[in-house]
């Protein structure tokens, strides 16, 4: 997030797009409710009539995968009606003129045709967003899990840049991260393009730095992403070390994923349960769980916080850092003589510019949001205040693209997938917490009541859901949350393996799968 969570009750206009916040980030959503109570206007763009939509002053029920069209249409209106922030564009951005010219072609009528929205709603959203003193954007995977995920994010950035709604309290571009420490994993350098602290692996200075630190030549090329690595299993990838991820259930195109992992010569999985993924491994190493281990995690607002051990480890379980260090030592890799989580974190701080002012003791009270470039720096709750990381904000000239697969005669219904309040991801944890089944015992397909009769389905009965990749049997639930012609379910339940169906395409830049759009056929089962 560019802005802190505490900012969420401060905007005059809140634009939520592709975020089912009340279910996926419920505590953050309470702040939005406070903002509404204070008089803020809420704009919600989501194909499904989620709870946030019911609180919205303006609800934009766009067709799945049409976000770019909506955002271009909004940019067109903002430019056309003279609502751009000229001084911000001049002082702090590049390519502004080209962008303003670019959006002239994308009228709200054009956007309405693609998105299924009413052009006047697109205009209204544009006016509210641009005219407010403080407008903030919040988004989640509904923006990123598309073949045009990067285009979606850049389209949101364009809106913020053209109106200057960034770098101030109560504004910004705010992705809500889905996992407790997904931010920390990226910060720590567990990505193919960056060393710790987002130092690019292709930068010769960074290469030299890590060559010195790690005592060996560094590959000047980026690594491949996990998505590519799964495609390369048995071809160029022959061994994997997977920590705490149930790839088989969480990733798209399950049968492909199974085949890939099975074709490895060597698979080592570190986890707390024998997950569907761990079952495929040659070696399974039991990790300590949350509550059993000391460590650090970083939340969606870049706040660096301590995890603390409350109970002893289960059985012979060991901390992840210890397990990985032991394997490294057996391969005679130097620099793995860590004795505690504190040792590991302090090493990370010592070589990451965004953590340079931090160490284990300084984060005791969770006061810091990175970047914290030096000791005595107060941290950075709001990013991009006086300048952008790379100097100037860059407009992107985006065009709308259809999803990888669109509905047709054989697959006439849009399936979109997501999460539910009571379940977390593949339920390895929530599925093993007493009582959760009382509220959410099984997965069901949310179908608009009008579609039920049309498709010969009964509420509470079963349906077969078929995509180009497979078929899944699922219980049917009549729900006004689903628009006509679009159905929804989560991927949380292993007995309803929805990831057999998904995986139609990937964003070319991030290789994030288009989990939000999958044309299907729905038939009674």
């Amino acid at each position, binding site marked *: 997030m560019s802005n802190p969570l505490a900012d969420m009750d401060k905007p005059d206009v809140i634009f939520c797009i592709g975020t089912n916040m009340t279910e996926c980030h419920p505590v953050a959503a309470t702040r939005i409710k406070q903002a509404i109570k204070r008089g803020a206007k809420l704009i919600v763009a989501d194909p499904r009539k989620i709870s946030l939509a019911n609180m919205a002053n303006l609800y934009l029920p766009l067709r799945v995968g049409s976000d770019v069209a909506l955002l271009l249409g909004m940019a067109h209106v903002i430019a056309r009606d003279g609502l751009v922030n000229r001084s911000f564009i001049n002082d702090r951005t590049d390519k502004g003129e080209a962008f303003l010219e670019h959006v002239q072609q994308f009228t709200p009528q054009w956007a309405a045709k693609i998105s299924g929205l009413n052009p006047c709603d697109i205009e209204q959203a544009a006016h509210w967003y641009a005219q407010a003193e403080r407008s903030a954007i919040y988004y989640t995977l509904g923006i990123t899990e598309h073949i045009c995920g990067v285009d979606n994010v850049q389209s949101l950035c364009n809106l913020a840049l053209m109106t200057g709604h960034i770098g101030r309290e109560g504004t910004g571009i705010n992705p809500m991260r889905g996992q407790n420490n997904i931010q920390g*994993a990226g910060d720590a350098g567990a990505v193919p393009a960056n060393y710790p602290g987002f130092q690019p692996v292709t930068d010769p200075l960074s290469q030299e730095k890590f060559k010195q630190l790690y005592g060996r030549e560094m590959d000047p090329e980026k690594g491949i992403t996990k998505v590519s690595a799964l495609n390369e299993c048995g071809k160029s990838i022959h061994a994997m070390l997977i920590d705490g991820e149930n790839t088989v259930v969480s990733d798209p195109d399950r049968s492909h994923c199974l085949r890939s992992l099975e074709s490895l010569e060597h698979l080592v999985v570190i986890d707390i349960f024998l997950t569907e993924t761990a079952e495929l491994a040659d070696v399974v190493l039991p*990790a300590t769980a949350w509550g059993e281990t000391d460590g650090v995690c970083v939340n969606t607002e870049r706040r660096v916080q301590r995890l603390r051990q409350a109970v002893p480890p289960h059985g012979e379980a060991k901390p992840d850092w210890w397990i990985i260090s032991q394997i490294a030592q057996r391969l005679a890799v130097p620099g793995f003589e860590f004795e505690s989580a504190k040792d590991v974190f302090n090493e990370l701080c010592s070589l990451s510019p965004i953590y340079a002012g931090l160490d284990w003791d300084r984060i005791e009270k969770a006061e810091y949001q990175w970047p914290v470039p030096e000791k005595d720096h107060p941290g950075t709750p709001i990013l991009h205040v006086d300048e952008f990381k790379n100097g100037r904000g860059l407009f992107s000239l985006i065009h709308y693209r259809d999803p990888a697969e669109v509905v047709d005669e054989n697959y006439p219904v849009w399936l979109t997938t997501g999460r539910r309040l009571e379940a*977390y991801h593949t339920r390895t944890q929530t599925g093993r917490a007493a009582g959760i089944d009382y509220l959410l015992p099984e997965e069901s397909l949310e179908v608009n009541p009008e579609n039920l009769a049309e498709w010969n389905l009964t509420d509470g009965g079963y349906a077969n859901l078929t995509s180009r990749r497979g078929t899944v049997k699922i219980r049917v639930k009549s729900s006004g949350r689903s628009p006509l012609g679009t159905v929804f379910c989560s991927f949380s339940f292993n007995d309803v393996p929805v990831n057999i169906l998904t995986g139609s395409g990937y964003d070319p830049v991030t290789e994030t799968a288009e989990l939000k759009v999958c044309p299907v056929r729905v038939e009674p089962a």
Partner: protein
Amino acid sequence: MITESKPVVTATMTLDGREVTYTEGETIYEVARRANIEVPTLCYDPRLEPFGACRLCIVEVEGGRNPVASCTTPAVAGMVVHTQTEAVEKHRRTLLELVASENPEENINPLRGYASQELNQLLEKHDVQPGRFQGKHSGTSNKDDNPFILRDYNHCISCYRCVRVCAEQEGDHAITMMNRGFEKQITAEFDIRLKESACTFCGQCVQTCPTGALGDRKAMRAEAQKEDFKKTRSVCPYCGVGCQVDLLSKEDRLVGIQPAMDGPANEGALCIKGQFAFDFVQHEDRLSKPLVRGEDGKLHEVDWDTALDRAAEGFKKVRQQHGNHAIYGVASGRAPSEASYTMQKFIRAGFGTNQIDNCSRA
């Protein structure tokens, strides 16, 4: 960044003979709290709008006819307030006696909730015995069969904290007061079960209840264990909001969760997952020993050395046969940062490649 700096309007008033400053808009109760003067209350929660239900926080204001509820009375310049006079103390004791006599005499286990000891602590502090107004008891238990929230309205004192936290903080408006007097009960609409209501089982009502009328059923499973629980400050293991929590443990077991009222991301709030979905940690399915695939194709329990040797051996072999780029690491967005750091170092320092990613693309 230009931050607007508005001058804070301050003035002074007198509290128990001390001159204190306050900011315009503060109530007498808030000023007293800041001044470290303890004024008893049962319906106050700093996150909620003042409500004035319990009347325990009454104070005398010089020049006023009757005592006033300090939680709803704004501070005024020059005001002279007495918080601990004999008359006020007598009034408070009587109120507490009334409350105590209405509720069953019962030790409320602190596992019921964060604020569950407030009433009992006040009774003890003011040395109040329930005997004087012995008579009818109020409320009934609600037979709601949900596994999370105990609804024991025999202990309800109509402070409305649960109703208000649900409406004001959560914005869910799931519960309200039904009936009045001895018949009162906190219910969802038409007395339906919480499961069928707008309740999201965030547990906020439980944690603000000052009497234990609402209780954390999951934590209460450990009531029989005699020893006190220990609190350990940590962060919720689920989404990226990063709510701070206190882990409640008895000996070697996690028994419950309470929200951290001063957690910067959550300020006391949690959701159902953070509040109630903690016990996977002690599930029987937990892996307790390393496993290695045997020649029979099955996974077998082995000791750590055997498993680690086998893990390392496999990477060595693949490196020899296929080179450094053939080895790939997937770090976890669920594990601590130390796990991700060592994983990327393992790949970069161990094999000199950047064949490393985390689970953020799916």
